[in-house]
């Protein structure tokens, strides 16, 4: 097989690109978790913010990724380096599943359980940390899973603006009209996505309360 041959011949480069790819995904997903989960919690507490927050996150998702890279290019500091730009764009894309799942997870906790907690005299902070978050953890992790898999796919486009990652093979292969080179980027990216999906799926199952 041509593809395997190509990958084996360039294995140190393939590994390097894979790690670049993973790094972009990890940093952006981490940032999105840091922003998205608190936002999701916030809109369960302030229902008026619900529509605007989810609306904006939804709207971001509809922007094609190349166009989003273009939009962000003139931004100061961010636009100076391709990886910063890509991380910001990926973070924005990952927000929707995180906000939505955090919101849905907390809203899905049995209201009788929450009322019992309130009736016991738990403060709303105690309710959040001891009841609402533990009981919605599975749903929240499902959001992280969707966001991660989404980012792994999107990051292949990062190569278009020179941020590295496995997309470099895809774009190079397209230019060279060489399927083996395209697949040398696409196959490892697909495996990354499958691996992330399986790992986070396992975690989701572990953390979902019975």
């Amino acid at each position: 097989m041509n593809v395997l041959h190509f990958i084996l011949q360039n294995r140190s480069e393939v590994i390097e690109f894979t790690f670049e790819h993973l790094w972009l995904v990890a940093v952006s997903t981490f940032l999105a978790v840091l922003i998205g989960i608190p936002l999701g919690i916030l809109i369960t507490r302030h229902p008026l913010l619900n529509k605007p927050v989810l609306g904006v996150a939804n709207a971001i998702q509809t922007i094609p990724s190349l166009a989003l890279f273009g939009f962000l290019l003139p931004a100061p500091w961010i636009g100076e380096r391709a990886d910063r730009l890509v991380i910001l764009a990926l973070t924005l894309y990952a927000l929707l599943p995180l906000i939505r799942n955090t919101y849905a997870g907390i809203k899905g906790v049995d209201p009788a359980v929450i009322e019992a907690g309130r009736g016991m005299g738990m403060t709303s902070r105690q309710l959040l940390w001891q009841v609402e978050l533990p009981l919605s953890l599975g749903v929240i992790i499902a959001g992280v899973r969707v966001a991660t898999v989404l980012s792994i796919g999107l990051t292949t486009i990062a190569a278009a603006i020179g941020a590295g990652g496995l997309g470099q093979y895809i774009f190079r292969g397209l230019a060279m009209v060489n399927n083996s080179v395209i697949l040398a980027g696409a196959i490892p990216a697909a495996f990354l996505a499958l691996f992330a999906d399986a790992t986070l799926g396992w975690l989701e199952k572990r953390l979902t309360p019975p």
Partner: protein
Amino acid sequence: MNSPPDTRFAIEFRNVSYRLASNVPLLFDLNLQIHPGETLVLLGRSGSGKTTTLKLINRLLAPSEGSVLVDNRATVSWDPIRLRRLVGYVIQDVGLFPHFTVERNIGLVPQIEDWPADRIRQRVQELLQLVGLSPHLLSRYPRELSGGQRQRVGVARALAADPPILLMDEPFGALDPITRAELQREFLELQQRLQKTVVFVTHDLREALRLASRIAFIDAGRLITVETPDQFVNSIEPQVAAYVDAFGAGRLVPENQKTRGTS
């Protein structure tokens, strides 16, 4: 006995009305005094306003008009967190935290009150004994218990920080008749020892007659009457008579009349 009546941890409803935000009225002009140490049963059909009345006491709801006094102080002027920690709350089945073990469920209030860990453990042991549960259940989760065991855990949890007031919302409603009778008997023994101010919601007339010091009958958001169990079965109030009839009046004798008859 010339000492003034003890009003500590009494509960009083003064002209209390409650409406939903959509203006649907649920309770009309409720006046009711609950004495310390008594078991007041709120009896009535589903949707009559019993649970609403209960939630007004621990301020899960605030009255639209009038005031609810706990320990001579309006619930709206209490810090709700402090108020609720003085008031144990037992609800039907679902109130246990599914992700907590029995031990953590029972120790919940002491834990949020920041008791030291060994004192919580000791208290949980005491409570387990009090409600008749075996210590090997401590590490189980609520789903691994029978209905009767779950309800005992619910009672133990409500008693954990030794609150002077206990609110019980159809606590035995989901149990089979035999388990229910068992828990009712245990409740009576427990209450005789602990002398809490108990407000107990049920739609089951038999349960009311068995447990109550007094029965407050609520119908369509209005308090119809407050009577002792013996008065209640002979009440001339038409709604009460109809309710008693529905349970087959002839076969019902309040618990305390039975004992009087045999002594």
